[in-house]
C-alpha cells in the first residue's frame, strides 16, 4: 500500500531517471573509454590513463581530420548563415511573386534522404568536371545548412513586433538605421542559434560528406574508417570534448539569459 503510494508520487521522477539514463549511457561510455589505455584498439577496458587527454593528436591523422571538419564547418556556417538570414528576411518581411514556392522549396533539402542528396551532388560535380574534395564538401554543406538557418531565423522574425520598427522610424531612424539598431539586434539571438545549428550539422555530417570528399578526411569520416580496425581512444577524447563544449555553451547561454531577465 505504502509502496504503491510512493511509486505513484515518484513516477515522473523514475521515468525521468530512466529516460536520461537511456540518453546518456552512450555518452558516459564514450567518456569513460577516453581514459582507456587500450593502445590501437579501444574495444576492451585495459586500464586507466590520462595519456589520451594529454595527447589528443596522438593517433595518426585524427587531428588532421578534426582540422578539416572545423575548417569545413566554419566556412559553411558563415556562408549558410549569411545567405539563410537574407532569405529569411525576404520570406518573412516581403510579399513577392514566388514567395510561397520558395517557402516550400527551402524545406526540400531537409526532407530529402541524405543518401540521395549525396549521390546526386557527386554526380553533378563530376558532370561539371569538379573533382570531389574540400570545396565540393563546403558547397554541399552550405546547401543543406541554409534550410535550417532559414527556418530558425524566420521564426525569430515572425515573433518580432512590427511596431518596434515603426517606433524606430517614428524616432527619426531611416530604413538602414532601423535595421541596424532595432531589427538586427532583436533577430540576432535567432541568427546565433542558426549558426550554432549549422556548425553542428556540418561538423556531424557523414553521408553527404562521404560521397563528395574524395581524399579529404573529415572527423566523422575518420571515425567511420577507423572503426574497421578499432577506433583510437583519441576519437573518444575529441568526442567527449565536443560534448562538454556544447554543454558549456548551453549552460552559459542559460545563465546569461537569466541575468538579463533579472
Amino acid at each position, binding site marked *: 500500500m505504502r509502496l504503491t503510494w510512493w511509486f505513484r508520487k515518484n513516477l515522473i521522477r523514475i521515468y525521468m531517471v530512466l529516460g536520461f539514463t537511456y540518453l546518456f549511457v552512450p555518452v558516459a561510455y564514450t567518456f569513460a573509454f577516453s581514459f582507456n589505455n587500450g593502445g590501437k584498439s579501444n574495444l576492451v577496458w585495459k586500464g586507466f590513463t590520462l595519456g589520451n587527454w594529454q595527447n589528443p593528436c596522438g593517433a595518426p591523422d585524427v587531428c588532421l581530420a578534426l582540422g578539416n571538419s572545423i575548417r569545413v564547418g566554419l566556412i559553411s556556417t558563415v556562408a549558410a548563415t549569411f545567405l539563410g538570414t537574407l532569405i529569411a528576411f525576404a520570406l518573412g518581411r516581403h510579399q513577392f511573386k514566388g514567395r510561397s514556392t520558395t517557402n516550400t522549396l527551402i524545406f526540400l533539402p531537409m526532407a530529402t534522404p541524405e543518401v540521395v542528396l549525396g549521390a546526386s551532388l557527386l554526380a553533378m560535380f563530376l558532370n561539371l568536371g569538379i573533382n570531389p574534395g574540400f570545396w565540393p564538401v563546403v558547397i554541399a554543406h552550405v546547401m543543406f545548412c541554409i534550410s535550417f538557418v532559414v527556418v530558425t531565423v524566420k521564426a525569430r522574425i515572425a515573433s518580432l513586433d512590427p511596431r518596434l520598427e*515603426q517606433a*524606430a522610424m*517614428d*524616432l*527619426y531612424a*531611416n530604413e538602414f*538605421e532601423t535595421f541596424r539598431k532595432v531589427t538586427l*539586434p532583436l533577430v540576432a539571438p535567432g541568427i546565433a542559434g542558426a549558426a550554432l545549428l549549422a556548425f553542428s550539422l556540418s561538423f556531424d555530417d557523414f553521408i553527404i560528406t562521404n560521397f563528395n570528399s574524395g581524399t579529404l578526411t573529415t572527423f566523422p569520416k575518420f571515425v567511420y574508417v577507423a572503426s574497421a580496425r578499432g577506433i583510437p581512444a583519441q576519437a573518444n577524447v575529441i568526442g567527449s570534448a565536443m560534448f562538454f563544449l556544447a554543454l558549456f555553451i548551453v549552460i552559459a547561454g542559460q545563465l546569461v539569459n537569466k541575468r538579463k*531577465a533579472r
Partner: protein
Amino acid sequence: MADASSSTRGDLRIVDVTKSFGDFTAVDDLTLTIPEGSFFALLGPSGCGKTTTLRMIAGLEEPTQGSIHIGNTDITHTRPYQRPVNTVFQNYALFPHLSIFENIAFGLRRRGIKDVKEAVDKVLNLVELPHLAQRKPVQLSGGQQQRIALARAIVNRPALLLLDEPLGALDLKLRRQMQIELKWIQTEVGITFVHVTHDQEEAMTMADTIAVMNEGKVEQMGTPADLYDNPKTAFVANFLGQSNLIEGRIDGNDGDNFVVDVFGQKIKINKNRSHAKDSSVLAGVRPEKIRIQPAGTAMSGNVLTGGVISDASYIGVSTQYQVEMPWKQELMVFEQNDEGGQPLEKGDAVTLSWEPVFTFALDGREDAFAGSEVHADEQ
C-alpha cells in the same frame, strides 16, 4: 532640448483625406484642423477610422487621397522619420534590447545629437522616473513603461505628439492618475497632443477639443462641454454619456424656443440647440438634468406627466430610475441623493421635469439608438 524641426511648426491640417483598404474605406473625406498647442482627442468606437487617421499623420500609412500639412509644410508623402511628429504607441513599443536611457536617447541620437544626457535626464525627471535609467523595459511595470514611452517621444520636442490609446493597458485607478498627469505634462511642454481613444471619459478629462468619429467621418467637433450639452447627432448624444431621445414634432414658436409636441405633451427647446431639418425631431435630455417627483406635484419648465417607475437602483451618490412613459418608452433619470426623505420606489407614479435650456433637438429621422450599442460593448 533641441527641436525636432524648428522650421515645421503650426496647425495640423488634414485636407480631404480618404484612406481605403481594398473595398473598405477607413477614413472618408476627412477635413480637420488641429490648432498648435492644443490637446486634441479623436474619439470613436473601434473601426471608426481614428487610428488610421493617426497613422497617416505619423506617416505609417499613406492617404489614398487628400493631403496633410503642418503649418505650411505638406507632409502627406514624407517618410515617418522626416516628420516632426512622434508617437506613443498603444503597447508602448519600447525597444526591449536597449536600456531606458538608450530608449529615450534613440530619437536624439538618430538626429545626430551627441550630448544627450542632459535632455534625457530632464525628461526622466519630468515623468518622475530618473532612477530607472539603466533598467530594461521588461523590468518596468505597465504604468512606468507608459511614462517612458511618453518621455521617449517628448524628448524630441516634436511639433506634434500622437497618442494611440495610451492608457488602454492600464487599470482604472492608474488610468485616472495618468489622465491628470498627461494633461499636466501637455501644459508643461506646450506641444500639440493628438490623442486617439474610444473612452469618452478619458477624452473629456484631457482634451480641449474632441472630434467624435464614426464610420470614417467626423460626426461633431467641439469642447467637451459643447459636445455633451449640445450634441448634433444621435451618435454623439449616445456615445458621449447617455441621453433620453424622445420623438416629437415642432408645433410652434415661443420667442427663442420651439414648442415641441411629444405624444400630446408640450415642451420647449431653445432654437440654438435645435439641429432638426424640419418639424420632425428627437427631443433630447440628459438623465441627470431631469427632476423626478411623485405624480401630482406642481413642477415648472418642461414637464412630462404619466410616468411610472419601472426600476430604481440606489448607487450611493445617486439613484438611477427607469421611468416608463405612457407611450411605452423607458426614460432614464439620475437623481442626486441630496434631499433625504422617502426615496421613490418601483411602481410609483411620477412626473418628470427639467429646465428647457437643457433640451436639445436632433433630426427626427435619426436612429435614436445610434452609438449606444458600440459604447456598451467597449466599456
